[in-house]
């Protein structure tokens, strides 16, 4: 008996496995398979982001009937921040003709970038992933706006200079960088080192191994001992709330701790309680619900009970980042429809749509998000844009904007990125020269 049941189970499994690839019913719709991590060690950051994107596309479907009259068939693919599963999700996205692939992890981006031009599916990795992908002439299929980690480093130093009263006052200062001991964490080091030589400040790095993310007391003692003036945090996941809490515990002034944009979640600051007051982070979009687009999401999605996020968490920083990503992707789909004249567009069309992406301040207002973020424009050569960012500050209960827009030092960053892109192309023998034609932005 046991064996028959085993055989039956195996048979069913096989049937299910093969059935998984049968194409879905072809109603007029645009498919979008989006990577998420609602489980695993990074789910704390993954859930609000996923809900933001999901709610934005649900809102478009409910309010406008999709984009250009075509419904967006939004699907999630769970990755657990695991590269193997992310590659599986790439295959799933390909099988379902997703118009874009959103890796949401650096490992997934690196593993799939070589496949993008073959499977004709563009990759959209928003301010993470391979920084060199900003060079559109080498990576026509990859887009990483609005800015790279290297730009982030430049914005950090400019902000510190503003607070210190000019770049000249940085001389003799000590700036510490707490980083996740992984490629992501070490990204800003080359730029910070170059800036340290130029402006005469000392850079000290404090790497945190991934297994020790929640144990930083010795690191913060070292920060006290080194008499560090400013601390930068390049972290993700459980490392961020720990850093904020330790800063409070050792009495390091919180308004001199600045996180990268991935260290700016509400749940990064909130667990530290009153100790977190004053903590800073970079961002490139506003928080809160005072935007018509967020109000539309509340009206058309949340009030209908179609959102996974609680009403009071709408408008938090990472949720709005998901909305921001949704707006950019939707705009690229719109561009693709306009360029091709088709209603149902493909991944190839959306790639062209990204290359002419141009959201001006007026366009942000039209999209229901006035002053939500800086204007974003991409070109065929520049898939990143190196757009401006600003600093936000935690007041104990929510984030508030704490600086003006700060533009990264494009003249310094761009040659470094082009060099990195060249190195990628030469080390990957057989990397194709760009053959995709370039559309003129209208």
């Amino acid at each position, binding site marked *: 008996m046991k*064996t028959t049941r085993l055989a039956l189970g195996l048979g069913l499994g096989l049937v299910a496995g093969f059935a998984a*690839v049968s194409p879905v019913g072809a109603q007029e719709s645009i498919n979008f398979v989006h990577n998420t991590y609602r489980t695993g060690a990074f789910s704390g950051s993954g859930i609000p982001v996923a809900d933001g994107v999901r709610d934005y596309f649900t809102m478009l479907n409910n309010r406008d009937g999709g984009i250009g009259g075509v419904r967006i068939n939004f699907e999630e*693919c769970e990755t657990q921040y695991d*590269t193997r599963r992310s590659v599986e999700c790439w295959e799933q996205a390909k099988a379902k003709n997703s118009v874009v692939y959103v890796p949401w992890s650096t*490992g997934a981006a690196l593993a799939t970038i*070589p496949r993008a031009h073959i499977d004709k599916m563009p990759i959209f990795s928003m301010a993470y992933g391979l920084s060199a992908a900003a060079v559109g002439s080498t990576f026509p299929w990859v887009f990483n706006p609005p800015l790279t980690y290297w730009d982030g480093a430049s914005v950090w130093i400019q902000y510190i200079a503003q607070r210190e009263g000019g770049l000249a006052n940085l001389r003799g200062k000590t700036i510490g960088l707490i980083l996740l001991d992984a490629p992501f964490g070490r*990204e800003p080091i080359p730029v910070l080192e170059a800036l340290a030589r130029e402006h005469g400040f000392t850079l000290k790095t404090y790497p945190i191994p991934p297994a020790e993310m929640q144990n930083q007391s010795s690191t913060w003692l070292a920060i006290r001992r080194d008499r560090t003036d400013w601390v930068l945090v390049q972290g993700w996941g459980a490392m961020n709330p720990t850093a904020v809490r330790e800063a409070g515990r050792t009495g390091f002034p919180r308004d001199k701790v600045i996180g990268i944009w991935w260290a700016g979640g509400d749940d990064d600051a909130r667990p530290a309680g009153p100790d977190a007051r004053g903590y800073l982070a970079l961002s490139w979009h506003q928080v809160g619900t005072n935007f018509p687009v967020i109000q539309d999401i509340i009206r058309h999605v949340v009030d209908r009970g179609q959102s996974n996020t609680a009403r009071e968490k709408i408008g938090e920083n990472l949720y709005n980042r998901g909305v921001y990503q949704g707006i950019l992707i939707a705009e690229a789909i719109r561009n693709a429809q306009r360029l091709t004249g088709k209603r149902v567009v493909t991944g190839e069309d959306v790639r062209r749509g990204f290359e002419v992406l141009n959201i001006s301040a007026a366009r942000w207002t039209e999209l229901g998000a006035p002053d939500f973020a800086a204007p974003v424009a991409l070109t065929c050569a520049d898939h990143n844009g190196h757009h401006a960012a600003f600093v936000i500050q935690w007041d104990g209960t929510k984030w508030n904007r704490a600086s003006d827009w700060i533009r990264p030092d494009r003249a310094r960053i761009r040659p470094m990125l082009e060099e990195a892109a060249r190195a*990628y192309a030469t080390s990957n023998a057989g990397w194709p020269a760009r053959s995709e034609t370039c559309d003129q932005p209208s």
Partner: protein
Amino acid sequence: MFYREAGQYKTTYQSDMAIFPLRQDRIGILIILALAYVAVPLMASDFILKTIMLPFLALVLAVIGLNILTGYTGLISLGTAGFMGVGAYACYKLTTLFPEVNILVWILVSGFFSAGIGVVFGLPSLRIKGLYLAVATLAAQFFLQWAFVRIPWLYNYNPSGAIEVPLRTVFGVAITGPTAAIEVKYLIALTFVVVLTWVASNIVHGRIGRSWMAVRDMDIAAQLMGIKLLETKLLAFAVSSFYCGVSGALFVFIYLGGAEAGTEFGIRLSFIILFAVIIGGLGSMIGSFFGAGFIVALPTILKFGLPAIGIAITGAIAEKIVVMVIGALTIYLLIVEPHGLARLWQIAKQKLRVWPFPY
């Protein structure tokens, strides 16, 4: 009725020692090989090949490797993913330093680098056992993972800290890199698995395998019988790490096509492979295949198979079910059936042998 050895006489010691003593088994293995080599590449879709077959083939070697160490020699190891990483990074360094050499040679050679590292970390196994050895190999895992991140020479000073698989061809056919056909990759991986399984199967059935099992069952008794413990245990570590290294090289070069330093070969993967060994069956070759197949296929079938046949299940819930099923099954099998799925297979074969007369 059909699966019976009546009339098949063994007249030599060789035939008595054969891996497949039954004619039906030999025919069966040929049919499976024919299916794997011809039917699967022709019939299966890219999705099946890429998300189930390639990771299965890459991981099955690591499962065999750990099974040699844990199942046959009784030495528990939590450093499997680290040794896989050594293979992957060795292969990457070798093929970027000597791009003109056939990549298939380097995949195999990278196993030897892994074997060398495995022997070094296997040295404490002479003195410590059980949980303490697990902790020592855990140290290997953490050290190796640290090295992959901290030694930029290993990833050729790539600013993104990742290893990217370049295009490599053999006789003009692309084998690695993004343009290689999925069927070619599948056949390459399959050939590695078939050949290395055949080798492993012969090792564990021969003198070396017997000495490993003697050490596993009681090392003092094995020593009294003249088995040198140090050499035997280190050999087990070397062979095991060799398989893990080849598995890691295949995992990155044939399956993933690129890896971020330090995240792919984490402790999580070590545990998954250990679970595959336990679920498949400790000390069994066929069990390694069952275990790897189960671990690789279960999440994919739950996540994509169930929605495709109309059972609505979200990816997040599927992942949680996978964790629960694998956890429960590991505990259940450890207590009730240490020989895992392989034992079920054996029972099925035994039943089939006497069918339709059960007595």
